[in-house]
């Protein structure tokens, strides 16, 4: 086992979608767009200010190549919260999303009609009803889920986009719905703490019997072998374990 602590790389940034007086023009990226990368602060969420609607997305990248082929058993995703502007609460959702080719560009924005639904499973989730810690230091969790383990790219960069649950559901903001955290190039850049260990492959040979397992009080023990058995009818099961 080992622990790898990774701080966000300088490529990390943010995108702002602006829809003017029409919310869906922001949510579906039919308005104007502002891409900032790298960004020292980032703020996933939404906003309605001075008659204009905005959707904000954060794009984070960590060099996780040190994990290699190890099996990841846990990920903690922590940030230094700066400002709590979640006057209306929402969930900051994280998704694995490879966006880094050529650096962060307008094309990386995820719209609510096609882009966000295509992101797949949520790998981190933080509900702002739990508050947003703004004291200095890594006091704010982003709620990494078990899916984050599989999202770690041991051969390169792990890339994530953070969006508002209200953007995903196209729920228009009535005011401020965002939280600010330190992103990259700051004093406390977004951080992953990864627990991992070399993958171990076990190979088991099927018991040397064709007796149905239903006839046994307990399933027959399978013998662990170093190499696949020579007998052609033997079943081999391989898997990984920490």
């Amino acid at each position, binding site marked *: *086992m*080992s*622990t*790898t*602590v*990774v*701080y*966000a*790389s*300088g*490529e990390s940034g943010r995108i702002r979608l602006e829809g003017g007086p029409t919310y869906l023009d922001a949510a579906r990226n039919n308005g104007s767009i*502002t891409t*900032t990368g790298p*960004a*020292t*602060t980032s*703020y996933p969420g939404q*906003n309605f*200010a001075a008659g204009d609607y*905005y959707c*904000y997305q954060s794009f984070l990248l*960590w*060099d*996780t190549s*040190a994990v290699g082929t190890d099996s990841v*058993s*846990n990920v*903690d995703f*922590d940030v230094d919260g700066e400002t709590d*502007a979640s006057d209306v609460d929402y969930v900051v959702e994280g998704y694995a999303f490879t966006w880094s080719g050529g650096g962060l560009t307008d094309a990386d924005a995820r719209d609510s009609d096609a882009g966000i639904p295509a992101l797949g499973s949520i790998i981190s989730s933080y509900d702002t009803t739990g508050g947003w810690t703004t004291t*200095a*230091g*890594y006091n704010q969790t982003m709620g990494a889920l078990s899916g984050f383990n599989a999202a770690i790219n041991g051969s390169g960069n792990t890339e994530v986009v953070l969006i508002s649950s209200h953007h995903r559901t196209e729920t228009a903001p009535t005011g401020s719905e*965002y939280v*600010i955290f330190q992103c990259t*190039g*700051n*004093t*406390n*850049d977004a951080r992953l*703490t990864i*627990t991992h*260990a070399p993958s171990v492959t076990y190979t088991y040979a099927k018991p040397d019997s064709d007796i149905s397992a239903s006839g046994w009080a307990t399933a027959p023990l399978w013998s662990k072998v170093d190499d696949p058995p020579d007998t052609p009818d033997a079943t081999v099961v391989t898997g990984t374990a920490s």
Partner: protein
Amino acid sequence: MGAIHDAVQAASTESERKAIKAQAWVDQGLAEGWNFTYRGYKVTLTVAMEMDSGDVVFNATLSKSGTDYTPATLNPIRIVNPPYMVEDAAGDITIGYLDVDGNPQTIKAREDIPARIISQLQDLGDKVIDAL
């Protein structure tokens, strides 16, 4: 400004920047046996910090009253792209950013590698202690 910050700013690639930060940690020369007490627990380096593939790598233990509480999952510890600054209103480093309204803002900071090493070890200690 600080030498590390200047070097980071002058570096042309992200891997160079990471290595400069990591080397700054290793250059503190914290040897095996170096320790401090946090939340009543003794944090001890059992393998000195060294560079490995541009990262900082070391081992540490957490003990209290002679009992070792170090989880089997902790070591070795690798720090990738480590931090080197702390916020300081009187600091000589200015970090600029745009707020949500697009207005330029700044944060003042200073270099302080020892403080960052301590805070990193404290954060790892928190995760261990809170799980006990």
